[in-house]
Structures are given as structure tokens and as C-alpha cells.
């Protein structure tokens, strides 16, 4: 961590952020928790594949097919390296992290969970880590338990041993997409393992923002989604320990995932292809690898330091300017949070905040952020969420504060 990251410089690598909008207004993008913008290198990597080395993968003897396969499998190696996966065959490409969670629920879950079996979630999960389990609750009668929140918006681990007692799986987000709260994954994984349960991590908000090491986390499954980590849409990743993946039944059936097919039966291919039915997201994997390489060049430690710094600046600025009229749902402790700021003004609904901010070129998301159970816990219907990433700088935070001030003024005329 030699010198700090400069968001103003990083921004120049992102074509959408560089210029004014077509109508001449500036663009302040503060919705990276929803999806990140893409650096030019990601677009170039995909275009280069399509223009020089594109063919379907794993099926061609000819060089073009070999080149495409090499790039696709090379992307898998890049992902494995980035998250500290011991084996590249443990990296499964899915279409998004939602599919990754469903894959686990449908295959490992179907094979290992029955009526009355307990899965532990937390109150701050994204729907992607709730609905697949609610579906299993309906279909086979599993039971859900929920890790609650402390007053400072952290997971309340005071009764963790009790919660995980007798459970088969503990599945939690590593960072809340609403609160920014960072989960102590290792403590939860240890507790899960002591209780004989496995541990799954929804790392959709973690992988883009902090160094990832699945071995240090000691989790059993980890998922993340490409479009939040500077990659394209259409790709996600499931990592899991190979013993577990080997023992799991297959997920979708079709080409690529089979060893043999007869009219009366079929046998399954080896990892990782066992879980990749059909033509995979070839260009998307290549684009994701380019996004990861971009982050590696910045350095994930510096990415994290930059975001802590910018989050501190944002919290200070907003508190100084709006005091108690602005609620920020999320931990006050900077070391326990990422750059996600869920805002609520006394007088103005989040939806209206986002609308007025947009008029000032400031993009923030308003709504339940796919975390309705959490919203109910917080006692709100929606928040206006500003989220920070590598390409944001203090001028973006200032623009947010100015636009918020204009919003308050507009609505209290």
C-alpha cells in the first residue's frame, strides 16, 4: 500500500464516467453496489476475443477453438487466483450470483436437506440468499433461523452457538448491500463447523471491495457476481471445496456437463464442467478476468483503503451538513463497514430523493434493495442508497451533499 488510490485518476479509465452526459449534464455515479461501471480494458478484452479468437469452447480441434478455450479457462485461473481458491476446478461459472446460490440450494440442498433440517441465514440477506431457502422450506420443509442485528447494524453473534446448534448450513452475506456492514465470516464459519454445519458466503458485495481469501475465511461455498466487480453482465461465480462439489449431484443437464449420454441414462463430467451445462459465458468470463486484472493492478488493499477513506469523508461531510435530519442506516465503525450509505431524510421519501438527485446528475438507488426482510427490521419501506467504488472521489461526495441540500430545499419550499 505505497500511495493511496486516486479515484479521479481511476475514473478516466471508465468511458461512461469520463464525459458529460449527452445532454451536457455531469454524471456522478453512486450506485456501484447495484452494478459497477466497466473500464475500457474490460470492453477491449471482450471485443478482442470476438475479433480475433472467438469460437465455441471445449469442442474444437481447430486453433480458433483452442484459443477461445484457453482464454475461457485462463479466466477461470484468474478468478481462482483472485479469491485464493486452492484449485481452479473449484471455480464454477454461473450466470450471476443468484444462480450460484440456487445451484447450492438445488443440488447440495436437495441431497442433504430434509424436513426439519435447519439453515441459518441473517437478517441482512439479499433475496438471492433467502428465496432459494424459502423454496426449500416449501418443498421439503427445511427450517430457517435468522441471525439478528445489533444496535450498530452488525450481525449479533452473541447467541451464535445456539443459533447454529443442530444446523446443516449457515449462509450469510459477507457485506450487506444495504448497510455496508461487514460480516465476521471466519467466526461464523468456525461456529458452523463446530456445530457440524457447512458455511456459505454471499460475497457479492465483498469480492469487489476487499481482498478475498476463501482459505482464510474457511468457508465451504462462496459466490459473487461479475457485473459488480467491473466485469460484464451475464456471469457469476460459485466457488466451493472440491470434495463438496464432487459429492454434489449435477444441476442443469445438457452439453458440456456430461461424460456420456445414452437413451436410458447419462454420466456426469468432471469438475468444473459438471456444473456448466450448455455453452458457457465465454466472452463474459474473459471480460470478468480483465476486470479482475484491473483491480489487481490497483491492488485490493489500496482499493479497500481508498473506500475507507472516502466513506469517512462521506460520513463526516453528510453529518456536518445535515445533522440529525439525515439518517444513515449502517455501522459507525469504519473498520466494520464498506462504502454503502443508506440514507433517509426526515421530510423526503427515498424515491423522491433519488429523483431530485438525478436531476443533479447524481445516481443513487432508492428502494428495498432486494432485502425486504431487512427493511422490515429497520422499520422503513425504502432507503436512498449511495455506494462508493474505485472510480469515486471526494468531488462525487460533495456533489451528493450539494444535491441532497437542493432536495431538502425543493421539498420544504
Amino acid at each position, binding site marked *: 500500500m505505497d500511495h493511496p488510490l486516486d479515484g479521479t485518476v481511476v475514473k478516466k479509465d471508465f468511458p461512461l464516467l469520463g464525459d458529460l452526459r449527452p445532454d451536457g449534464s455531469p454524471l456522478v455515479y453512486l450506485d456501484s453496489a447495484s452494478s459497477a461501471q466497466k473500464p475500457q480494458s474490460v470492453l477491449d478484452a471482450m471485443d478482442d476475443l470476438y475479433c480475433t479468437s472467438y469460437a465455441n469452447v471445449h469442442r474444437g480441434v481447430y486453433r480458433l477453438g483452442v484459443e477461445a478455450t484457453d482464454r475461457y479457462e485462463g479466466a477461470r485461473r484468474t478468478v481462482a487466483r483472485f479469491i485464493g481458491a486452492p484449485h481452479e476446478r473449484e471455480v464454477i461459472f454461473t450466470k450471476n450470483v443468484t444462480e450460484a446460490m440456487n445451484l447450492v440450494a438445488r443440488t447440495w440442498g436437495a441431497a442433504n436437506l430434509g424436513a426439519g433440517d435447519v439453515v441459518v441465514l441473517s437478517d441482512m440477506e439479499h433475496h438471492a440468499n433467502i428465496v432459494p431457502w424459502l423454496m426449500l422450506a416449501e418443498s421439503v420443509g427445511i427450517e430457517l433461523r435468522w441471525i439478528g442485528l445489533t444496535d450498530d447494524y452488525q450481525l449479533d453473534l452473541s447467541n451464535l452457538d445456539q443459533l447454529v446448534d443442530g444446523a446443516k448450513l449457515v449462509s450469510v452475506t459477507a457485506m450487506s448491500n444495504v448497510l455496508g456492514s461487514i460480516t465476521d465470516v471466519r467466526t461464523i464459519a468456525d461456529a458452523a463447523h463446530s456445530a457440524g454445519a457447512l458455511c456459505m458466503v454471499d460475497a457479492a458485495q465483498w469480492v469487489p471491495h476487499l481482498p478475498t481469501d476463501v482459505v482464510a475465511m474457511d468457508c465451504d461455498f462462496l459466490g459473487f457476481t461479475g457485473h459488480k466487480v467491473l466485469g460484464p453482465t451475464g456471469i457469476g461465480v460459485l466457488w466451493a471445496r472440491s470434495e463438496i462439489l464432487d459429492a454434489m449431484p449435477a444441476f442443469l443437464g445438457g452439453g458440456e456437463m456430461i461424460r456420456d449420454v445414452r437413451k436410458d441414462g447419462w454420466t456426469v463430467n468432471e469438475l468444473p464442467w459438471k456444473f456448466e451445462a450448455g455453452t458457457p459465458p465465454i466472452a463474459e468470463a474473459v471480460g470478468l478476468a480483465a476486470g479482475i486484472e484491473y483491480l489487481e493492478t490497483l491492488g485490493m488493499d489500496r482499493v479497500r483503503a481508498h473506500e475507507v477513506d472516502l466513506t469517512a469523508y462521506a460520513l463526516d461531510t453528510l453529518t456536518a451538513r445535515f445533522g440529525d435530519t439525515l439518517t444513515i442506516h449502517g455501522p459507525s465503525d469504519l473498520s466494520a463497514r464498506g462504502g454503502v450509505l443508506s440514507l433517509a431524510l426526515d421530510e*423526503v421519501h427515498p424515491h423522491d430523493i433519488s*429523483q*431530485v438527485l438525478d436531476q443533479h446528475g447524481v445516481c443513487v438507488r432508492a428502494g428495498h434493495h432486494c432485502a425486504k426482510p431487512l427493511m422490515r427490521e429497520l422499520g422503513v419501506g425504502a432507503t436512498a442508497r449511495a455506494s462508493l467504488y474505485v472510480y469515486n472521489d471526494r468531488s462525487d461526495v460533495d456533489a451528493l451533499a450539494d444535491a441532497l441540500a437542493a432536495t431538502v430545499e425543493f421539498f420544504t419550499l
Partner: protein
Amino acid sequence: MPGLEDLYREIILDHYRNPRNRGELPVPPAHRTEGFNPLCGDEVVVFLELTDGKVTDVRIAGQGCSISQSSASMMSSAVKGLSIEEVARLTRAFKDMMSIHESSLEGADADSEAESELEEIELGDLEALRGVVKFPVRIKCATLSWNTLSQAIEDTLADS
């Protein structure tokens, strides 16, 4: 670029700050119907009392943005005392103003019919919401209460 004043007309903000017919009605005789916008989480709860095919009373609960809540407030004022048929016509006229047509690809013909009907109907205060059309994501905010009312009428009729 459409301006904020297109969206947030004074009368809308007035209904938002001072919602009409806010509250609940005893169930029964009233019916309670919940509606919500899956994308943003806005909720409108309609308490509806129908007597002899007429809206004899209506109350609104729930929470949400200025557009969804003011639209609900305006709706409640507009439909009180109307017959079910009149409510249906008003709903149709309102949705036409919101440019909500069938997403069917053959739907072209339906549009022109709708427009001619629209002209005959007095929208009154509801006209203030016309600017919402310029902000397509907010259309669902404006129509949420109307959809919930339609559901409430259906439920009430089904029950009786």
C-alpha cells in the same frame, strides 16, 4: 430534459403533505386490500366500502413516495360516491393518461380507441399527475393505488 416541476406539481405535494381520506375503516363492512410496487417497496392499503354498487367510503393507509401517496390521496377524493362503472371508466382514463397500454404487440388499435374515450372524461385534480409520464419509472408509483382499488372492488364483489 423534463424538469422537476413537471413531476412535482404543487397540488401533488399538497396531497402528499396533507393526504385526504387517510386512515382505516372497520373490516367488515369495509374490505381491506394491499398493493405494492415490487421494485421500490411502496405500499398502498385501500379500505373500501361498497353499497349498492357505489363507493360509499374509502380510506388509504400504507407508505411510499410522494407520487404513490399523493396519487392515492387524489384517487380517494375522486372515487368517493361514484358507481363501480364510473370508477372503472375513471381508472381507464387515468391509466390512459399514464400511457399504460397492453404490452401486447398487436395492441396498436386499442390505443386510438382509448384516446377518444379519454377526451370525454373529466380528470380534475388527477390531471396534475400527467407530468409523471415523462418519468417512466414513476408511472407505477402513480398507478399503484388505482390497481389496488380495482383489486379491492373485485375482491368485494367476489365476496358478496
